[in-house]
């Protein structure tokens, strides 16, 4: 283990034009002002987060494909028992940001499903057997995690962007109506139910639109993480800030990517949310995703009981704090709950250097789900840092600005972001040290 150096924990402030911050997270704020990440710049942190990005990207390559498959093809199937058994067409669906055909190539690799994913889907942990047995044995990619993220976005809503507002418009309802009628054409039972309970069907279509939203969001993140892993393997990142800046540039590069929802009934394509609505990856997908999934989510069933009447759950949804940035990874590591499902998925694709690292610490292989969960937490603090730096770039001022008023505006922005980590559940303090595992 490489202990963090004093220099990496407390980066010198580039500018003495404004007085030091008095915030509880002043050290972190000064580091952000110096172009750093919330995660200290140590070689081990870099190794941990890149290894996790790689392990995350492989299941994510399944998540985005299956999310789009469900949104576009499975759609309102009343008994969607096979929704996780993705079609070959969607496994081959060319990623818009990988492969030779991509207009903006982020990952140097191919456009189809990742080879490690295909290998795992064929064999799982239990060896070769029919797909359906893998599915029932739960020896597969846990799509339930992706659906939990989708539901967090659907449930929280109102997190900026115009996506949810659009779902209430007459234009959306008319498009959804067309899609419902086309999908259940020749099915008098379902069409009859639609007549009786139209709002129930509308709600289901809205949920499908969030499947599409998250699928299109992750279609970008999977090649971003694959490329970061390849850069690291080639010795390309010098430190955590390099990894963060790669993400910042990526956020800008794809910010204008359209977010839409198309449904296919046979060969017919029905545009429930057309690209022409102008919805963008940054505003309608990425920022709501970070807010809903990294910060808010909801208490998971089966880990801890909360008494809402006693005020143990915030009255205001904006104060929810059950996301990865606040998670206590140990009790969360219980069977069946979404974060554990993700950890289990990532475990299958850990690069050898992380497997080695986990063996050396704590209980070795016995608690590697917890160790990789904490590494995931570190890596998501770095992604959140990238989002914060991207927003600072987009809405505020360069870090080397010389106007004190601009520097104070940047400072206020950083401090406001750090206010969210003042509550005791926040893990920002834990990730400052290397022995939090």
């Amino acid at each position: 283990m490489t202990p963090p150096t004093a220099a990496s924990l407390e980066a010198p402030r580039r500018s003495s034009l404004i007085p030091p911050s008095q915030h509880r997270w002043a050290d972190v704020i000064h580091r952000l002002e110096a172009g750093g990440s919330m995660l200290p710049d140590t070689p081990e942190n870099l190794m941990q987060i890149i290894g996790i990005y790689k392990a995350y990207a492989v299941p994510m390559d399944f998540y985005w494909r299956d999310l789009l498959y469900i949104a576009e093809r499975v759609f309102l199937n009343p008994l969607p028992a096979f929704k996780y058994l993705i079609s070959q067409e969607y496994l081959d669906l060319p990623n818009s940001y990988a492969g030779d055909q991509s207009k903006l190539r982020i990952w140097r690799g191919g456009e189809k499903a990742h080879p490690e994913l295909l290998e795992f889907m064929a064999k799982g942990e239990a060896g070769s057997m029919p797909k359906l047995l893998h599915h029932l044995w739960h020896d597969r990619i846990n799509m339930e995690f992706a659906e939990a993220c989708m539901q967090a976005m659907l449930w929280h809503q109102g997190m900026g962007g115009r996506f949810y507002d659009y779902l209430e418009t007459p234009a959306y309802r008319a498009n959804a109506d067309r899609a419902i009628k086309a999908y259940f054409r020749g099915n008098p039972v379902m069409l009859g139910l639609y007549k009786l309970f139209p709002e129930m069907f509308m709600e289901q279509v809205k949920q499908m639109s969030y499947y599409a939203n998250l699928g299109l969001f992750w279609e970008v993140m999977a090649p971003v993480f694959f490329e970061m892993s390849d850069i690291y393997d080639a010795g390309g990142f010098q430190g955590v800030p390099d990894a963060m800046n790669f993400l910042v540039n990526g956020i800008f590069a794809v910010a204008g990517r359209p977010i839409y929802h198309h449904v296919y009934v046979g060969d017919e394509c029905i545009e429930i949310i057309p690209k022409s609505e102008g919805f963008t990856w940054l505003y309608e997908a990425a920022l709501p995703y970070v807010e809903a999934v990294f910060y808010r989510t909801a208490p998971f069933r089966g880990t801890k009981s909360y008494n809402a009447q006693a005020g143990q759950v915030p009255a205001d949804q904006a104060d929810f704090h059950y996301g990865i940035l606040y998670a206590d990874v140990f009790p969360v590591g219980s069977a069946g709950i979404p974060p554990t499902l993700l950890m289990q998925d990532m475990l299958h694709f850990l690069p050898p250097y992380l497997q080695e690292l986990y063996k050396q610490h704590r209980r070795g292989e016995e608690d590697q789900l917890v160790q990789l969960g904490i590494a995931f937490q570190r890596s998501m603090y770095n992604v959140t840092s990238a989002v914060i730096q991207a927003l600072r770039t987009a809405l505020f001022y360069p870090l080397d600005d010389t106007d004190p008023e601009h520097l104070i505006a940047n400072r206020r922005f950083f401090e406001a972001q750090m206010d969210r980590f003042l509550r005791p559940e926040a893990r920002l303090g834990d990730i400052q040290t290397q022995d939090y595992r």
Partner: protein
Amino acid sequence: MATIIEAAKSAGCFNTLLTAVEVAGLTAALESPGPFTVFAPVDDAFAALPPGTVQTLVDNLPQLARILKFHVLAGAHRREELITRPEWDSLEGAPVAIRRAEPFEVKNASVLQADIECDNGIVHVLNRVILPG
């Protein structure tokens, strides 16, 4: 006097903006009587965006149009009028904040030149592309 488009063309430092307006199909709108207030980022402002940013927008015209409309207000507003209110609704829908009067700043951009009078509105030249949020 010239229209907003003509004025921008003759200035010579708005090539990216003019191309973007053209491909987004907004040229005709900006040649209409308006009037409009246009916050016009110079070429260097677009060049300062991370690589790929502009290309993704040019490949997706409704999304490009949305960002461009954020740079336009309905009505002709000179600096003196703009600084009387903290924010103004853009044609994109999101508000544009006027952060400072002296020196004149619109959101996080500095106004390099204010109050360029045109037939169909007023142009303020920005050193940065402004984004909603």
